[in-house]
């Protein structure tokens, strides 16, 4: 109920884009993809640089676990080695001398969970008006705003996502009131005094767009364009055309909105497009071709199952809930088999939350989606399902060269679960970010407490 109310208020989110198979890799935010001309930018494209640094960790060996490495593979009774903040090796019979050995027999190891769609920090707890910083709902297109300028690092939601959900990285999106909501920011889920201290080093920026009901309701309600879906497209297309003219203008002055749009057109910024309906997604993919950009991911894509073929052909991911449906008109055709039907069609599946509660249970959402598929005869291996909330999310966000799987050399972002992560009865027991142990269920002090919670009822409670 609370979720629905939030969505109706225009706070809910949807964003997205990013293609599962074709994102820019580690430094996509900083450089143009190879093969395209260098940017003509004569300004600092990274004025709020990440100051994140990995916290110290010990060489660690998780021994005897069932390991899902995020790429679809499952290793039984295996060992995961972490050293120097990185995944060093996954396998059996590995030498663990010199490592802090953790007996993981009967337990499970996965990559850190990644949420591609979060509003933590921008709509933090407590969710009072003074904290409502997720929608610059004053103009249908606001490509000039950056979500990171709204993030409150003290949001207690970050700590719950870590402790209960095993979330080690997440993308914060501006909300869905606007056709073009602004830039997203990708964070490592570490407590920090500043947002720069959480920024995922080298992650590309994303760009939030929204289809359908929200923009037309918000602006139609104000008696201005857009008030219809055709109005949505008209405003979008004209804005893209203006950005292309800006890009071609040799005498241009700096313009924050157009700098973001040009970044999208040049492939440096990944489009995350809130879009529920299949027919609208198809139109957006055509608009993207017309204007010369690509959509990375459709978010809240409850009708993706109707166009799995189109999504596969266009290399566009669908970021979805397992089974939310029916809370607004454009969610009326949501079905729990969505993810399984997409997987069957060969399209990219990402499980997302758009919720400070749901982000604590992305593994459970994936398990429900898997089960719904199984009941209609689509049997998806557990390892692939784990990829829906790890590596696929990383690909869609352009950070898969650095995290999302337990492959040697990747960041030591790891969750040790006390049971099968696809069971309702399991929870994270320990969580590492870049090889540093940041959550330990058995150690009350390895559990972050935000500034806001100090001295309050329930401080330091396990929550």
């Amino acid at each position, binding site marked *: 109920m609370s*979720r629905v109310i939030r969505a109706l208020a225009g706070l809910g989110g949807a964003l997205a884009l990013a293609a599962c198979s074709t994102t820019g890799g580690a430094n996509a935010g900083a450089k143009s993809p190879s093969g395209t001309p260098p940017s003509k930018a004569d300004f600092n494209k990274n004025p709020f640089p990440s100051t994140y640094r990995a916290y110290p960790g010990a060489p660690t060996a998780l021994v005897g676990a069932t390991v899902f490495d995020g790429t679809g593979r499952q290793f039984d009774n295996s060992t995961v080695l972490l050293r120097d903040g990185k995944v060093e090796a996954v396998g059996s019979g590995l030498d663990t001398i010199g490592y802090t050995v953790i007996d993981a027999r009967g337990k499970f190891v996965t990559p850190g969970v990644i949420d591609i769609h979060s509003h933590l920090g921008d709509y933090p*707890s407590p969710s009072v008006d003074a904290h409502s910083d997720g929608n610059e709902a004053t103009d249908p297109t606001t490509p000039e705003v950056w979500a990171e300028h709204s993030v409150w690092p003290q949001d207690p939601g970050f700590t*719950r996502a870590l402790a209960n959900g095993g979330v080690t990285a997440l993308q914060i999106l501006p909300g869905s009131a606007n056709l073009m909501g602004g830039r997203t920011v990708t964070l490592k889920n570490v407590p920090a005094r500043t947002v720069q201290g959480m920024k995922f080093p080298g992650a590309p920026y994303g760009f939030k767009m929204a289809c359908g009901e929200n923009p037309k309701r918000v602006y139609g309600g104000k008696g201005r364009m857009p008030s219809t879906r055709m109005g949505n497209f008209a405003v979008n297309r004209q804005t893209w055309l203006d950005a292309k003219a800006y890009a071609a203008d040799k005498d241009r002055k700096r313009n924050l909105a157009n700098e973001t749009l040009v970044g999208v057109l040049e492939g440096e910024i990944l489009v995350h497009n809130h879009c529920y309906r299949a027919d609208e997604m198809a139109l957006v993919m055509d608009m993207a071709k017309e204007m010369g950009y690509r959509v990375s991911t459709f978010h809240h894509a409850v009708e993706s199952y109707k166009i799995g073929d189109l999504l596969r052909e266009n290399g566009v991911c669908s970021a979805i809930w397992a*089974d939310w449906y029916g809370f607004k008109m454009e969610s009326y055709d949501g079905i729990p088999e969505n993810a399984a*039907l997409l997987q069957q069609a060969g399209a990219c599946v990402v499980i997302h939350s758009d919720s400070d509660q749901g982000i*604590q249970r992305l593994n459970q959402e994936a398990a429900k989606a898997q089960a719904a598929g199984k009941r209609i005869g689509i049997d998806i291996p557990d390892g692939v399902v784990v990829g829906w909330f790890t590596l696929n999310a990383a690909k869609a966000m352009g950070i898969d060269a650095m995290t999302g799987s337990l492959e040697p050399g990747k960041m030591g972002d790891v969750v040790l679960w006390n049971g099968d992560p696809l069971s309702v009865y399991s929870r994270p027991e320990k969580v590492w970010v870049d090889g540093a142990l940041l959550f330990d269920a058995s150690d009350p002090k390895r559990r972050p407490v935000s500034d806001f919670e100090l001295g309050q009822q329930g401080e330091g*409670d396990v929550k």
Partner: protein
Amino acid sequence: MIRASLFAAAAALAFAAPAMAQDFAITNATVAKGDGSAPIEGATVIVRGGKIAAVGTEVRPDPALPVIDGSGSWVTPGLVAAVTSLGLADVDGVQESNDISARTARFNAALDVVPALNPAAQHLKVARANGITRAVVTPGASNSIFAGQGAVIDLGADPQPVMKARAFQMVTLSESGARIAGGSRKASHAELRNALREARDFAAGKWSGEDNLLTRADAEALGPVISGAQQFFIEAHRASDIRAVLALKQEFPRLDLVLVGATEGWLVAGEIAKSGIPVIAESLQDLPERFEQIASTQSNIGRMRAAGVTVSINAATLENTHHYTQYAGNLVALARMPGATGLSWGEALATISSRPAEALGLRGKIGVLKPGAVGDVVIWDGDPLELSSAPMRVFIDGIEQPLENHQTRLRDRYRDLDESDLPKAYDW
């Protein structure tokens, strides 16, 4: 298709007249009674005349009774969803279809959900397919702290959903109630007490009309609340708000109170237990989303239960009503976490079956597999609280229910994307 074949394999029972209650037995299943006890393996459930007739491992069905082989299956009572809008809205976000609240109505306490109920609503059908057979339908507050009168319904595929009309009056004292009443808790408490006093006057024949703030209909509607004939659901979250609710009994001793929300209930669990007031509680809420929830924790229900409170899960706080079993399963998961307080499996199931029934004064009648209770039975393909499980068959009052809905039809239509012969619109 898959589901149909499963049924054929599992069932030796033909329901020639689906609208008629059938006498039958389910044998050799893992049976969870819903009363807090642990599941029993190899048990039998007998349904006769629309009621549960017998449950247990020693039960021997009459050889003439049709038998469903429950081998490999789990059997539970139909789930009871407490505090829902089932039947009141087709799409929450589509105002025309939404009868949950009445933003500019002239009446408040007098509002009654019954004439607005639509037993054919899709949300209700989906809830039924997820094992929910009874629901507490609750109006939403918007124009007054008094939201109106809710009902207990069954989710059967028939035009008669109402099991208990005007079962309770709903009022909110939470932050939202304070805002509605005029901007503060002072205002909501003044509003509440004034209304109860005016209702008392009305019931005593001392109603003048002119000097009263309530409409005549609202004053009349609150009569059964004052006398204790109708339950009084009060939403409150902060520990101090909960204490204020418990204190109401001093001035109005006959109130039949039920606490709704109680996010900080664990802080005052002993006092709630002593009062005997049941709680329909926040479960997994663990964030201070409002200042009245500063101490929220996923251990809320576990800690209240440990203190002896009758506590069930508030379905209104789930992201979707059909997540009911998932939330109960999470309470079991908490029992394995250091420092957290969860529930045993049996107690977790009870929070979505018999405990809501107890809160409603329907103990032993719904939400439990016990002789004399309604014949609401769900046969699951596995552990009902586990994410991989789903209902295979659902019975309400002994009548097998259809599990098809808009979602299952879409699923079947889009099982493939083949349009080589005709558009998808011809695939039905």
